[in-house]
């Protein structure tokens, strides 16, 4: 099966790889680029752990072939914090509000919440729950995560 040469920008870095078409974006990020912050849970679009941003839109990287991301801009959880390691407001809020326990689902939540608050800076509780419904967490009971979204929203409103 013919390989495809794909180019994309991942966390601000230009990347070029030869890929089999069946390689998912998630596998490209993890196995080829070493960006193992993107987690794989179900690998068929249910759990949301592999959520990344493609041209700014939150998508499941297990439901996208790397070749489909050719020419796109991809942001993973590794690209969210500042260069000096300072956590983004969303990441800081998850830490401060006990929005994680084991942390497996957290990269997906960080990406989903980052896109959610960019598009809707002041979401209602219902909008938060709806916005997070595509990400599963087996530890927290979600209350801490929901609190983190509210906290991050006010932090962002106050200039981050």
């Amino acid at each position, binding site marked *: *099966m*013919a390989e*495809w040469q794909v180019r994309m920008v991942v966390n601000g870095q230009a990347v070029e790889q030869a890929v*089999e*078409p*069946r*390689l*998912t974006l998630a*596998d490209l990020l993890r196995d080829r680029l070493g960006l193992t912050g993107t987690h794989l849970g179900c*690998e*068929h*679009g249910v759990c*949301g752990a592999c*959520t990344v941003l493609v041209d700014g*839109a*939150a*998508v*499941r990287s*297990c*439901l*996208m*072939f790397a*070749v*489909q991301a050719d020419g796109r801009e991809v942001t993973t959880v590794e690209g969210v914090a500042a260069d000096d390691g300072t956590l983004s407001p969303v990441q800081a809020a998850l830490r401060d509000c006990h929005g994680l326990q084991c942390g497996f689902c957290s990269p997906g939540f960080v990406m*989903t919440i980052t*896109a*959610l608050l960019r598009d809707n800076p002041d979401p209602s509780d219902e909008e938060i729950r*709806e*916005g997070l*419904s*595509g990400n599963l967490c087996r530890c927290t009971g979600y209350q801490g995560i929901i609190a983190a979204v509210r906290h991050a929203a006010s932090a962002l409103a106050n200039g981050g």
Partner: protein
Amino acid sequence: MKPAPFDYHRPDSLDEAAALLAELGDGAKVLAGGQSLIPMLALRLACFDHLVDISRIDALRGVERRDGTLWVGATTTESAIGADPAVAAAVPLLARATPLIGHAQIRNRGTFGGSVAHADPAAEYPAVVLALDAELAACSAAGGQRVIPAAQFFTGLWSTALEPEELLVGARFPVWSGRCGFAIEEFARRSGDFAIAGAAVAVELDDGEDRVRRCAIALLGMGPTPVRAAGAEAAVTGRPLAELEPADVGATAVAGLADVPSDLHGPQSYRRRVGAVMTARAFAAATAEAAARPASAGAGNEAATSG
């Protein structure tokens, strides 16, 4: 890598895509957003030698008003449809169905045409297409373009009237004007799951006595394809709203169904009850919306929505 190997093709134009499908025949599958296809490939429930990615063909993407109808291109994402004020104004049922599809991350990739061509009987867009009698445009290298009425499009479980070498180009929706109301209701065990049962309802009332001038009801999850509740539609048409009990409309809608599925979620009888309740709720919501619109000639649905 979980899917079986395949060759990938990314045509830049509709002609190129149609030529590829003609050449590759049965061994090829169209890939748009991939939100149903890729899980099926990952689980090896499906296997194809070739995938033809149509997502970069500009002509297939976008929504526009055309001669009193609304055109929705096949690769328009569900997110784009949900966010488009032109859709909300012209075909409210389509806009209201959109948030019920999967999750935000799915809607960012999933496409209108992918959902319709995949033809899951519990999916929302196929039910809306069927309820509103949309016209589906298909094209092939040999036959050029043809129009398939929604009533003839869904032929069985995950099966459509599209030929293997044909590509769904988009759909043309009629724009209902007058005193109209629209609602879609469904029940799923978890947010984002395919519904156990649901109903999409469009209704128009006359100006004077709140009689039902026309009514369309499409049921989802109630058979191998989405299905129109023709008996219930006929039973309400021409009658004044005051005489109509939504629960009766729901009961009539599910009465004659032949192939209601029975599965882990529950037996046929349960699905019938859920379907009847969803129909009743959608009918009540749609008629309430229509009745609240002013009864004056020329007060079109869009004027009321945008004003």
